[in-house]
C-alpha cells in the first residue's frame, strides 16, 4: 500500500497496463503510462535541431578551440540545459566529470545530464547533484550514483531509458539535447571522429550518433587529433560545432569493462551450459542462426558453449550481435560466425577486429533498437541471452533495482533485445540467500509476455505462451519445471522473503522502449 506523502515530488499516480502505479507528470513534464507492448505510437514529426548554415563555420574546416571550457562557453552553456555524453569509455571516462567541473566553475545550475550510461567513475558528480549544478540524471545509474538516487537525494527525478529508448526520446523530442560532448579516440579538426584508433580506442561511437544528429551544439573531444580526414567518420564532422584536443579522454585499462570476462564460477558455467543445451535441443542453434549475448559473465560463457555445439555440428551463425569481446572475435575469425553486428566493443580484441575485419560491422541504437526507425535489428535475432536481478511468476523481469529496492543498474539494450525471437534469461535460482524468482518484481523493466525462458541451475521454466518450446524441450532430459515450482524450490532453501516497505516518494521512472512509463522506483527507507 502506498501512503500519500505530503513531501512527494509526484502527486498524480495512475495504474498502467502492467498494473504499476506511475506518475502522470515528473520534472514538470507530462508522462504517458505504459499501455501495453506495441500499443503506443506517437504521431507528428520528428524533432529537428536548428537549421545551421555553413557560412557560420570556418571555411577551412578548422573548428578547433583551445579547451573544453572554451567550447562549452561558446556553445552557450547556461542554467537548465541538457548535456549529453556517451559511455563508450565506460569506467575509464574522463569527459563527463570535466564538463560538470567546468559548469560548477562557471556557476551554471540545474543541468540535466543525459548520458547513454553512467559508471562508478562518475561518483565524482555526486557533489554537483548535491550543490545544484546538476538537477538530475536521465540515464543509467550504477553503484554510488544509483544509491544516491535511491535515497531520494537527487533534486529532479531520474529517468532511465534503454539504448533504443534514448534514441526514441531524442527523435520524438522528449529530450532536447542542448550540448552534446562526444569523446573520441580519433578525430580531425573538422569534427569527423571514430573510436578505432588511438590510446582511448573504444571501437565505435554508436551511442553518440543521435546526439551528433539532434543536439543543438556538438563538441568533439579527442586525445588523438589527426589531420583531416579522420576516416572512417563514425561521427560526421558536418554535425559538429567545435573540436577540442586534450591529453587524455579516457583511461584505456578502464575502458575495458570488468563484466566481460568468461566466468570461472562453476555454478555460472553450469547455467551457461544448460542454456546452450536448451538452445540446441529446441533447434534454435541451426545453420545460419543469429544470437546475442549480454555483457555478464554467464551470458558471455553461453557463446563459448554455442561455439562448441557449432563446431561439433559443422554449422555456423549468420550473425552475432555484439557487445563484442575476444571470444566473439575468435568465433568470427574461426569462421563460426559470418558477421558481428556490434553495438560496443568490450575489449581491445573487439576494437582490433572492428578496425581490421570488414565483417565486424559497427552499428548504433538507430539500426539496432530504435522505436522510431522503420524496423530495427532486434526482431531479426533468433535468440538473445540476457541477465536480470529478479523475475516474477508472470515472467516480468527487473534489471535496475535489487530486491532491497536500491537502484544499481542501467537498462542498456536489455528492453530492446526482448523483441528477439527467443529471449532467455539464465539466472541463479538465488544469490546468497536472495531468491531471484519473486511473486512480484521490485521494478518491472520488461513485460513477461516478451520473456520466454528462465534457466536456473535447478531447473528451466518456459513461458506457457511458448508452447512450441515446451513441446521441443519435453524429452530433452533437461530439467523443465514451472516457474512456480522454481520459486517454491528457492523459498524452500532460502525462506520466504519478507515484504519491503518503501517510501511513496518516486525517485526514478523506468521508460519502456516507446517512451511510456512502465514503472517508477521509490525511495528506499
Amino acid at each position, binding site marked *: 500500500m502506498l501512503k500519500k506523502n505530503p513531501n512527494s515530488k509526484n502527486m498524480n499516480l495512475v495504474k498502467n497496463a502492467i498494473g504499476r502505479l506511475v506518475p502522470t507528470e515528473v520534472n514538470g513534464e507530462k508522462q504517458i503510462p505504459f499501455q501495453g507492448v506495441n500499443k503506443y505510437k506517437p504521431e507528428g514529426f520528428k524533432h529537428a535541431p536548428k537549421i545551421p548554415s555553413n557560412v557560420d563555420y570556418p571555411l577551412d574546416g578548422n573548428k578547433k578551440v583551445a579547451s573544453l571550457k572554451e567550447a562549452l562557453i561558446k556553445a552557450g552553456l547556461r542554467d537548465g540545459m541538457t548535456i549529453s555524453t556517451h559511455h563508450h569509455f565506460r569506467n575509464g571516462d574522463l569527459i563527463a566529470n570535466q564538463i560538470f567541473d567546468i559548469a560548477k566553475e562557471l556557476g551554471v545550475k540545474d543541468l540535466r545530464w543525459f548520458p547513454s550510461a553512467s559508471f562508478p567513475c562518475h561518483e565524482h558528480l555526486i557533489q554537483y547533484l548535491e550543490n545544484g549544478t546538476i538537477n538530475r540524471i536521465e540515464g543509467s545509474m550504477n553503484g554510488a550514483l544509483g544509491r544516491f538516487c535511491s535515497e531520494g537525494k537527487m533534486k529532479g527525478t531520474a529517468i532511465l531509458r534503454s539504448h533504443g529508448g534514448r534514441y526514441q526520446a531524442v527523435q520524438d523530442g522528449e529530450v532536447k539535447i542542448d550540448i552534446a560532448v562526444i569523446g573520441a579516440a580519433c578525430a580531425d579538426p573538422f569534427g569527423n571522429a571514430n573510436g578505432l584508433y588511438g590510446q582511448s580506442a573504444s571501437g565505435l561511437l554508436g551511442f553518440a550518433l543521435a546526439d551528433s544528429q539532434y543536439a543543438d551544439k556538438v563538441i568533439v573531444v579527442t586525445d588523438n587529433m589527426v589531420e583531416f580526414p579522420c576516416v572512417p567518420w563514425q561521427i560526421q564532422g558536418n554535425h559538429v560545432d567545435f573540436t577540442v584536443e586534450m591529453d587524455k579522454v579516457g583511461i584505456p585499462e578502464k575502458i575495458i569493462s570488468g563484466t566481460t570476462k568468461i566466468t570461472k564460477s*562453476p*555454478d555460472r*558455467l*553450469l547455467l551457461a551450459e544448460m542454456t546452450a543445451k536448451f538452445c540446441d535441443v529446441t533447434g534454435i542453434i541451426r545453420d545460419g542462426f543469429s544470437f546475442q549475448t549480454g555483457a555478464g559473465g554467464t551470458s558471455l560463457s553461453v557463446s563459448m558453449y554455442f561455439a562448441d555445439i557449432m563446431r561439433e555440428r559443422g554449422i555456423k551463425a549468420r550473425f552475432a550481435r555484439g557487445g563484442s569481446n575476444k571470444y566473439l572475435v575468435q568465433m568470427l575469425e574461426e569462421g563460426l560466425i559470418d558477421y558481428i553486428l556490434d553495438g560496443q566493443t568490450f575489449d581491445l580484441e573487439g576494437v582490433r577486429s572492428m578496425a581490421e575485419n570488414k565483417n565486424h560491422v559497427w552499428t548504433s541504437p538507430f539500426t539496432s533498437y530504435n522505436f522510431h526507425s522503420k524496423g530495427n535489428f532486434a526482431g531479426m535475432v533468433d535468440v538473445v541471452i540476457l541477465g536480470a536481478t529478479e523475475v516474477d511468476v508472470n515472467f516480468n523481469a527487473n534489471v535496475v533495482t535489487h*530486491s*532491497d*529496492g536500491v537502484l544499481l543498474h542501467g537498462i542498456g539494450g536489455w528492453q530492446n533485445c526482448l523483441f528477439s525471437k527467443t529471449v532467455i534469461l539464465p539466472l541463479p535460482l538465488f*544469490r*546468497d*540467500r*536472495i531468491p531471484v524468482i519473486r511473486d512480484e518484481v521490485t521494478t518491472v523493466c520488461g513485460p513477461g509476455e516478451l520473456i520466454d525462458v528462465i534457466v536456473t*541451475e*535447478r531447473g528451466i521454466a518456459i513461458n506457457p505462451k511458448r508452447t512450441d518450446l515446451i513441446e521441443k524441450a519435453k524429452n530433452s*532430459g533437461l530439467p523443465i519445471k514451472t516457474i512456480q515450482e522454481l520459486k517454491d524450490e528457492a523459498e524452500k*532453501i*532460502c*525462506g520466504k*522473503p*519478507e515484504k*519491503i516497505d518503501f517510501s511513496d516518494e518516486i525517485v526514478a521512472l523506468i521508460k519502456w522502449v516507446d517512451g511510456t512509463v512502465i514503472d517508477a522506483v521509490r525511495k528506499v527507507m
Partner: protein
Amino acid sequence: MSIINKKVTVGNLGAKVRSDCQVSLELKDTGGIQLAINSKVKAIFGKSIEKLCADVLHFFDIEHAVLELEDRGALPFVISARIEAALKQLIETDKEYLPEIIPENTTESKKEQFRFSRLYLPGNTPSMMINAGIHKPNGIILDLEDAVAPDKKEEARYLVRNALRAVNFYGAERMVRINQLPNGLDDLDFVVPHNVNLLLIPKCESADQIHQVEVRIAQIRKKTGVKHQIFFMPIIESALGVEKAFEIASSSDNVVAMAIGLEDFTADLGVQRTNEGIESFYARTRLVNACKAAGIQPIDSVFSDVSDMKALAENVKKSKALGFEGMGCIHPRQIVVIHENFAPETAQIEKAQKIIRAFEEAKTKGLGVVSLGTKMIDPPVVKRAETTLNLAIELGLISKNWLEEKE
C-alpha cells in the same frame, strides 16, 4: 555451568565471504537478550533472522546475552550452526539445535554404487556446499580434515552436521572425511546420527583404525538408536599404509572403497609429486590390487590443476587403465571430465550389448550355454557386460530400454 562476560567469535567474515556469517556471543548475568544484526539480506529476511537467533538462544535456555551477527546471506542452517558453535564454548549441554532433516537426505547408499567422482567441500565453507549437488558428482565429501584450519575444526563440526540434515545434494552420496584418529573419533558424534552414507578415514595405516571407528559408531548407535548404514573409504597416504593395503581393504564389510592420497604419500616418500606419477606407480598398483583382492573399489587421488581439463582427462584415462574406479575432485568442473573418461568407450558398450543380447536369446530359447558366434561366454563375462551397460545407462550413453530398441 556457563562462562559469563567472555566474548567468543565463530564463523567467517571477509570481502570474499558469501553465504556465511560471523557470530560474536557473550553471556551476561542481566540485561536480557540483546541482538545486533547486520545482514546484507536484512531487507527481506531481517525479521526471520532475528527470530532464528532468539529461538536458538531460547532453546538453550539462555536468558541474558549479547549476540552480534554479521551476515553475508547465510542460510538458516548456517546461522544456527554458528550460534550453537559459539554457545557451546560457553556452556555445557547435551542439547543440539538441529535443523529439520530434509527427505532427500534420508536415503542410504549401496556398496556397489558408482563412485567415479567425489567432490571435496571444505567443512567450514557453506557457500561451496549449497550448490555442490547440482553438478551431479557421485558423492560429495564434507571435509573436516585438511580443508579446515585447526582453529576452525570445532565450528566446522556443527556446520557439517547441519549440512548433512538441511542441504539437498541432489542424490550424491553423502560422505564426510573425518580427522585423522584419534581426533576423528570425536567427529563421529556429529555425523553418525545424521545419515552420513560414507566416512573417509584419512591417513589409514591399520585395520585396527577401522575397528576403532566401528566401535565408536556402535556406541553412538546404541545411544541414539540410529541404524543408518555407514560405509567406509579409508585413504592410504603413507608408505606404511601402502604396505598394509590389503589388511585395511579387508578389515570390515563396511569398507566399500579405498582411496590413495598422493600429496601426503609423496611427502612421506620424500619425493616430488609429478603429473606422470612414476613415483607413485607402485603404490597405486598395489592399492588397486589390494582392493580387487578384497572385492572393493580402488579410488585414485585428486588431480590438483583445476584449470587444465585436458591433463585431467589424460590422468583419468591412465587411472582407469590401472584399474581405478573413481577419483576425487576439488572443483565441480572436473566432475564431467572424470565421468566421461571413466565411462566405457563406444566399442566396449557395443560389445557388451552383443553379449547381453546373446544371453537373453539363450535364456528365451532355454539354452544352458551362451555363445556369441563361435565363442562361449562365461558367466563373469556376462556380469561384466551388465556392469558396463548399467554404467552406460547411468551416464546417459544408452537408453534404459536399449534392449527393446532396434539394433
